[in-house]
């Protein structure tokens, strides 16, 4: 029985012989290790060649992994086993071989025989040619000049020299027969000539021919493409140096998002136009341009050319609306606390003021002299409307002077409003239920109506019928003050959200006009008794006087023109002007403020 290893030894020596042969004496040391005498090398050459020729594996292209567990690799032509060569090389040997063997790079492993083959020069050259996609044959010229056998040039001699047929000279009988058959069929009426299309309203017609031209014009949606801005100095191939980026600018440009960049590219400088490369982002940019055009909104913007001057409402000049108060004339000093409310006597000679210092003072209007001071608690007998914040919040007098209404702000109670009759010393409570926090009450100057301003709305009650006639929605968060026009048909309401609303009772329950001239909460509003004036006081320290003409003609809306902003009060603790009232006969306005002064503007 043959030893497995002996056979292997043989084949190993064979392969080493081959190696030596092709490598040109590269592995001399190994020969000796194989134990063969040098002298026999020449004799063995022919046999080896033959053996090399013979060693041909007959297994075909079965995967060689199948022989992994066997000592042989396959079978030669004679049916004998081809044994695997002895692989004594470990990793270190392999590495040393790699390092030391100059022919290592041309050594390939033949899986069919299990031997290492060192390729010859010609083989290496062949491999290289094949790798570079050339023909394996060195001598083969793939670019040989073509021989044109057929060309466009008319040759002297024909390609074929057959003479022309006879039938090319005489008319065809078959064709004649066919034509005569057709003619006969037409004559007999069997074939009809092609019908001429009646195109008066043919297959294709203008669907929109009868359409109105104006509609068509509207459908014509030609939108000129937005223009590309002209290139600037940055786009130049040789821009001035100030357009080139320095380090910071470049770093910034790179940091920025593409959409945020001021320039979509970095300006570059070239010595000549010849050295400018193709624009690398050309396709990208063209695509973006197309995208822009595609996504551009196809909505035609209808521009109306209106002179902005025409949009301003035609208001009369303030000069034509005189008289109205313009300048501060007198300052009434004496109170030590903020002055909540002021009131002028009907004669216009006296002014009463209620303050947080717990006193009511009476002033002579024309000299700003305080003539009387009453500490709250004492009886005050004056034909004036007094308002002071103690237990009683507000007192409103009827125009005839016999009735007065008082307000006590109390969320829970229905006894917020009381109406007192002075002559009989009787009080009555007009409301059975609580309708919200009552801010202000007022009598109608002429008719038996009673106005109650709650937090969000103004209710108007008919005192004779004892029912609510109207409810005005102020559109404000918190009404602070209310005044009724002396004619009785108009009401103004100031609110803590800086608004002043004018109600026309004949028009609607919504405000006819909202005035937002104040910067801060409106604290007080007042009408003049007969001049067409009203004023509003605000926490921003100003009093705004407006002209408000009310026409007898019901069709004509009231004319409201702000005419003057009166300043003078100092703002303290976020409180500015707290109350405002007009002189009964002159176009003068009094205002009381948180700075403990009353000011008269004339």
């Amino acid at each position, binding site marked *: 029985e043959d030893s497995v290893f002996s056979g292997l030894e043989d084949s190993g020596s064979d392969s080493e012989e081959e190696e030596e042969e092709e490598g040109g004496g590269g592995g001399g040391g190994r020969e000796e290790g194989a134990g063969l005498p040098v002298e026999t090398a020449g004799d063995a050459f022919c046999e080896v060649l033959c053996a090399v020729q013979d060693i041909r594996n007959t297994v075909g292209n079965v995967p060689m992994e199948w022989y992994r567990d066997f000592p042989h690799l396959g079978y030669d032509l004679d049916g004998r086993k081809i044994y695997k060569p002895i692989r004594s090389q470990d990793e270190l040997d392999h590495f040393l071989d790699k390092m030391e063997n100059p022919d290592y790079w041309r050594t390939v492993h033949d899986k069919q025989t299990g031997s290492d083959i060192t390729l010859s020069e010609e083989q290496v050259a062949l491999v290289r040619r094949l790798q570079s996609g050339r023909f394996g044959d060195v001598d083969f010229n793939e670019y040989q000049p073509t021989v044109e056998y057929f060309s466009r040039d008319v040759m002297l001699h024909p390609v074929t020299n057959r003479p022309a047929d006879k039938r090319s000279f005489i008319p065809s009988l078959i064709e004649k027969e066919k034509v005569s058959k057709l003619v006969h069929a037409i004559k007999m009426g069997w074939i009809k000539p092609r019908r001429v299309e009646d195109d008066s309203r043919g297959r294709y017609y203008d669907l929109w021919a009868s359409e109105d031209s104006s509609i068509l014009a509207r459908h014509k949606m030609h939108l000129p493409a937005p223009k590309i801005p002209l290139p600037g100095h940055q786009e130049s191939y040789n821009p001035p140096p100030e357009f080139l980026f320095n380090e910071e600018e470049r770093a910034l440009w790179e940091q920025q998002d593409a959409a945020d960049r001021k320039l979509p590219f970095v300006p570059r400088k070239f010595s000549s136009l010849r050295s400018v490369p193709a624009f690398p982002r050309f396709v990208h940019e063209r695509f973006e341009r197309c995208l822009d055009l595609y996504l551009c909104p196809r909505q035609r913007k209808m521009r109306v050319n209106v002179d902005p001057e025409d949009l301003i409402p035609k208001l009369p000049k303030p000069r034509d609306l005189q008289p109205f108060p313009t300048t501060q*004339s*007198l300052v009434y000093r004496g109170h030590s606390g903020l002055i909540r409310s002021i009131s002028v006597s009907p*004669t*216009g*000679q006296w002014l009463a003021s209620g303050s947080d210092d717990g006193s009511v003072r009476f002033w002579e209007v024309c*000299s*700003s*002299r305080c003539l009387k001071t009453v500490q709250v608690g004492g009886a005050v007998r004056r034909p004036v409307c007094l308002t002071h914040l103690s237990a009683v919040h507000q007192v409103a007098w009827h125009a005839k002077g016999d009735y007065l209404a008082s307000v006590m702000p109390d969320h829970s109670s229905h006894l917020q409003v009381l109406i007192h009759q002075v002559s009989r010393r009787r009080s009555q409570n007009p409301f059975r239920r609580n309708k919200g926090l009552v801010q202000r009450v007022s009598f109608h100057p002429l008719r038996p109506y009673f106005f109650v301003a709650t937090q969000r709305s103004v209710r108007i009650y008919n005192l004779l019928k004892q029912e609510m006639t109207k409810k005005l929605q102020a559109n404000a968060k918190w009404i602070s003050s209310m005044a009724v026009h002396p004619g009785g048909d108009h009401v103004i309401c100031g609110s803590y959200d800086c608004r002043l609303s004018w109600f026309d009772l004949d028009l609607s329950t919504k405000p006819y006009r909202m005035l937002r001239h104040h910067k801060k909460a409106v604290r007080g509003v007042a009408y003049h008794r007969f001049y067409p004036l009203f004023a509003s006081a605000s926490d921003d320290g100003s009093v705004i006087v407006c002209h408000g003409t009310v026409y007898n003609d019901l069709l004509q809306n009231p004319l409201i023109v702000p005419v003057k902003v009166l300043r003078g009060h100092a703002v303290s603790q976020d409180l500015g002007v707290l109350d405002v009232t007009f002189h009964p*006969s002159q176009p003068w306005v009094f205002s009381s403020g948180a700075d403990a002064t009353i000011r008269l503007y*004339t």
Partner: protein
Amino acid sequence: MSQLQARFFTENKRYAVDDVPFSIPAASEVQDLSHVINTLLQAKNESHKQVEFDFLVRGQFLRTSLSSHMETEGISTEEVVEIEYVERIAAPEPEECMMHDDWISSVDADTEWILTGSYDKTARIWSTEGKAVMTVAGHKDVVKDVAWVKRDGLTSLLLTASLDQTVLLWEWNSERNKVKARHCCRGHTGSVDTIATDPTGSKFCSGSWDKMLKIWSAVPTEEADEVEEPPDRPRKKQKTEQLGLTRTPLMTLSGHSEAVSSVLWCDSEEVCSASWDHTIRIWDTESGTMKTTLTGSKVFNCISYSPLCRRLASGSTDRHIRLWDPRTKDGSLVLLSLTSHTGWVTAVKWAPSHEHQLVSGSLDNLVKLWDTRSCKAPLYDLAAHEDKVFCVDWTESGLMLSGGADNKLYTYRYSACQTDAGA
């Protein structure tokens, strides 16, 4: 530098120069012209002393350079310019300061005594030297106006009007220094703001917040007038303590629709009243009818009449002083308006001896001396007061007085010796 032909003239014979045209530079101002006149006078008269002059070109005071003045006035520079010159009015010199206990509402002065009404419900009599002589107390409320009526030797009659709706007629003996309330004039239903005695001293007129004017007799008698009490008046009210004998008005003039702020007598038969209803009305006291109405646009605080120039000056709440001619029936009623104050004009008074000068007091703490020939700016601003000025007055003896809310009554000495005053 252009030259102008100018001829100087004056009505004061002392300073007259030759009536020949001079060529003077167009840019010359008051100082230059004054120097020219002084040089001319010195050349004529060795003993002439330097005098400051003011110059008038066609009745207007020269305040800028001559050329710009003529340009604004539209005077041709081709002709000979007639320039009048007068001795410059010296600035009033403050003399005395009389302290009161409270605000001074009114002042009336004659050549000897000064009468002031105050907010401490009294009237005071002072000598012109500033010595407190007498305190007249009796009103129950603020004294709004005071007036002298007549002086017979040592006894004088004086009037005080008050917020307590009465006017009191007092008799004051300056030797014994005793004051006695002679009559209590009842009838007004509002505070009496203004009183004026007629030139003869036999009647006086009062204006009140109740919109009425009432004319009373100013002659003290020994018997009280019967007062028609309204029947529904409580009986108790009648027993109130009262000074002097009750007097009722001779005549009531009603027509104003607002409070009467100021009254005065134009002559012995004419009363002029200014009111808050924007009108000045002139009444005939014989028939008790209204003669003329002058309508303004603002509340009138005060009026003053000068018999010298027959003009009415009014101070109103729009800070202007306006001059009116009460006799014109048509055309523009306002002859001139003097604008310089920045507050209500509360007092205005014509000079007793000068037809062009007036003084005004205002709520802007200033007293201003005006000359109607220079309407753009006042002659002098007297900024002595620290608070509102309520009253001003002149005396013929050369005193100007002003009182106000700083409790002080100031007197100023002005050069009354206007020998060239025109008149």
